[in-house]
């Protein structure tokens, strides 16, 4: 493989503790190497530019049935933004047809992450029954490495085992399902609440029992944490808590986070957290109705800052028209009742559900302005950028392509002030939040922690991703951004919108902002070895015979068709 030497860039890398010093980065055989280990490298002049590891997306909805429902029932999302395909014009020599804004085509998803300097992304909610569809879409998403989190929080096996306090069986079932669906981590969405939705109910508090199963969200969360640490998986339990999106829900969120108390991470991947709470912006709301809606980012972040065994991602509201989609079925129904826009809903037998509703985060609506403020407050209140990550819960709070705009708001108080002024209800937004009083501006070193090193560590993938340390995968992004210059807010956004160069496992993907290669994408999954468990195997057989509409053989994900290029992370829990 070609050797590269990226010379004289301003390097930002928390794994090497480099804070913008001018340094060289060398690439050989797909890995980062010491600069004297390359003999005849192709030299990339990065002087005056910013060099970071490839970005890591810890939570986005980018592949699978609910994303595709969004694509199918929102043709208007592709209106005026589709581009011609392969070789139709000189600027599209290596890319296929692209379309969509909030729910882009698989190809556009891969290209757009690459253009932002991202090299890995995690699909945040894989319904196990439709794992094959998820993998087919990930297969068709070029360049970036991907993994998917199967959802467990409303799964009948899990609910039954946890009700009986059978953590060993829960863990054995999880290990089986991760292998059957080629999943990466344990996701829990509105634990218990989505199953309750099948009964026309919801679990809004962590103590609300699930109908029939008679377990509480609290018990589900604790049980999944214990099972996760029993297995020693690379990632922790990845939770979307109960009561999302409702005024006053921050108390539920604190209750959810308390499930982590007393638990310690046990794994060989240097992961320290036992609970990752995702898109916590949607869970940090005060007030008791929309009229007195307000930010509770501070009590949430006070708690998160104090508890080192918790990580969060934000879910920034980007003030766009977007498409919400989640396995939180009851929430999507709630949303369509609010905005009267089209609603899609599906129940996934024995496992989960999902809903899809378009949503317009309008700067003219006071609640949307406060939601925007809460996202930024969470990031700016974070004392440890290695535990607080940048996401938009794509596409729920906004499309991931807005990351550069989020960086602008995080890195520039002026940019925030301009946006506050632009709100129609500016005074009400300021009263309902603290954002106007914040003068913190994030540094690129902190940004590198929030988008690279931090997510890599939380995912248990710091041995591969997230830094520029020799031995790590050669995922490197070079941005046309000089941190020593005075940069206007719009210059920040522009510079991070299209990477100048991008390398993925040592291959040059983007040159001068143009995609030159579709790379060699890999699918990450976790192979957890557990002691033989005849009871769980019998339960699985029984459920397939009695309840599932498919056979086990038509359920499992096997073979090159679904995963042409797998990368299994091995875990031994025997």
């Amino acid at each position: 493989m070609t050797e590269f030497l990226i010379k004289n860039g301003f390097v930002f890398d928390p794994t090497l503790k480099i804070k913008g010093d001018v340094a060289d980065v060398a690439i050989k055989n797909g890995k980062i190497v010491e600069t004297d280990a390359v003999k005849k490298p192709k030299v990339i002049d990065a002087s005056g530019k910013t060099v970071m590891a490839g970005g890591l997306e810890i939570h986005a909805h980018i592949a699978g049935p609910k994303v595709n429902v969004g694509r199918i029932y929102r043709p208007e999302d592709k209106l005026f933004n589709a581009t011609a395909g392969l070789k139709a014009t000189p600027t599209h020599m290596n890319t296929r047809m692209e379309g969509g804004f909030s729910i882009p085509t698989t190809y556009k998803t891969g290209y757009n992450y690459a253009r932002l300097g991202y090299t890995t992304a995690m699909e945040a909610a894989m319904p196990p029954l439709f794992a094959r569809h998820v993998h087919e879409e990930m297969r068709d998403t070029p360049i970036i490495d991907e993994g998917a989190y199967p959802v467990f929080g409303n799964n009948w096996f899990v609910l039954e085992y946890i009700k009986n306090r059978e953590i060993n069986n829960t863990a054995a079932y999880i290990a089986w399902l991760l292998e059957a669906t080629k999943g990466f981590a344990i996701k829990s969405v509105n634990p218990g609440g989505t199953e309750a939705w099948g009964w026309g109910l919801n679990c809004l508090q962590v103590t609300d029992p699930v109908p029939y199963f008679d377990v509480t969200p609290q018990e589900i969360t604790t049980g999944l944490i214990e099972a996760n640490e029993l297995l020693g998986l690379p990632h922790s339990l990845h939770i979307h808590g109960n009561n999302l999106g409702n005024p006053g829900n921050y108390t539920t969120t604190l209750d959810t986070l308390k499930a982590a108390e007393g638990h310690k991470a046990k794994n060989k991947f240097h992961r320290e957290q036992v609970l990752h709470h995702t898109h916590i912006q949607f869970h940090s709301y005060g007030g008791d109705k929309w009229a007195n809606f307000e930010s509770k980012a501070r009590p949430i972040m006070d708690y998160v800052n104090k508890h080192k065994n918790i990580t969060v991602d934000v879910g920034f509201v980007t003030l766009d028209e977007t498409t919400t989609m989640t396995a939180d079925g009851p929430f999507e129904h709630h949303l369509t009742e609010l905005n009267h826009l089209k609603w899609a809903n599906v129940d996934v037998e024995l496992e989960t559900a999902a809903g899809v509703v378009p949503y317009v985060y309008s700067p003219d609506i006071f609640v949307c302005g406060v939601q925007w403020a809460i996202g930024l407050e969470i990031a700016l209140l974070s004392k440890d950028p290695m535990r607080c990550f940048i996401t938009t819960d794509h596409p729920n709070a906004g499309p991931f392509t807005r990351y550069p705009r989020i960086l602008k708001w995080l890195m520039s108080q002026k940019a925030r002030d301009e946006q506050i002024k632009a709100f129609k209800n500016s005074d009400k937004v300021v009263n309902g939040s603290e954002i106007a009083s914040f003068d913190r501006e994030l540094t690129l070193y902190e940004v590198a922690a929030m988008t690279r090193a931090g997510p890599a560590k939380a995912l248990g993938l710091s041995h591969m991703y997230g830094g520029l340390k020799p031995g790590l995968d050669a995922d490197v992004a070079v941005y046309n951004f000089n941190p020593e210059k005075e940069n206007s807010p719009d210059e920040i956004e522009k510079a991070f919108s299209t990477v100048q160069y991008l390398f993925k496992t040592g291959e040059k993907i983007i040159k001068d902002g143009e995609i030159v290669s579709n790379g060699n994408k890999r699918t990450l999954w976790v192979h957890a070895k557990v002691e033989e468990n005849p009871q769980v195997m019998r339960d699985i057989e029984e459920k397939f015979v009695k309840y599932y509409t498919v056979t086990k053989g038509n359920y499992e994900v096997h073979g090159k068709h679904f995963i042409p290029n797998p990368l299994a992370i091995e875990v031994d829990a025997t």
Partner: protein
Amino acid sequence: MNTVTLTPKKQSDLYLEVNNITPDMFAGKSTEQIAALPVYVGNTEHPLGEFFTVTGAAGASAAETRIVIKGDSSRLKYIGMKMTAGEIEVEGSADQYVGGWMAGGKIHVQGNVQAFAGVGMRGGELLVDGNAGDYLGAAYRGDWRGMQGGKIYIKGNAGSDLGYFMNGGTIVVDGDVDVFVGTHAEGGTIIIKGNAKSKVGGQMVQGEIYVFGTIDVMLPGYIYRQELEKEVEGMKGKFALFEGDTAERHPKRKGQLQYAKLYLKQ
């Protein structure tokens, strides 16, 4: 006002997408620059001059620019798309999406227009001497934002799904209309001087429909309220007022539920 005349010199194999034929795009450009504007055949780009001879001169601004398209335009899509000012005169018939998303100015088509004319229209005027196709003044596929403002006048008949998701503006049809009128509409005025078939005002939340002729099948979701005297489009008459669609949600104003109004001439 200056006039640019486009005279066809070659037919395209496929339908030609001419969203750049607008006063906004032509304003301030020479005839050579106009001839160099891209038009689309499938996924390939061609200069406008390959299909048209461009004569005359454009004005300095869109408002000062008038475009005349000679000959047969029945294979041209997106004439006047997103235009904000100025005028377009189509001497023949036009294909789909005439005046789609237009915000101002005036389009006059002497022949017929195909489906999706005035889709997502926000302002301005679209006048058609002949017939209109389906989805006149409607929303784009999947969208909930149909016609928002402006006026559409059809001297002939119109097709089905007229004013689908309409939110504002006025559509007048001198002739008859096909099924589905004002479906999902939340505002605006639809005036049908001829007859309507069925599904008039289905799932309509707010807005007004006037029918001067007959409706073959009324929707059961409409309730008769009263008879009243009205002047519409210069014609006076007695109308029966129905309110609906009661199968749909309706917003409240001052404690009163707001319904869509369907006026049927007596």
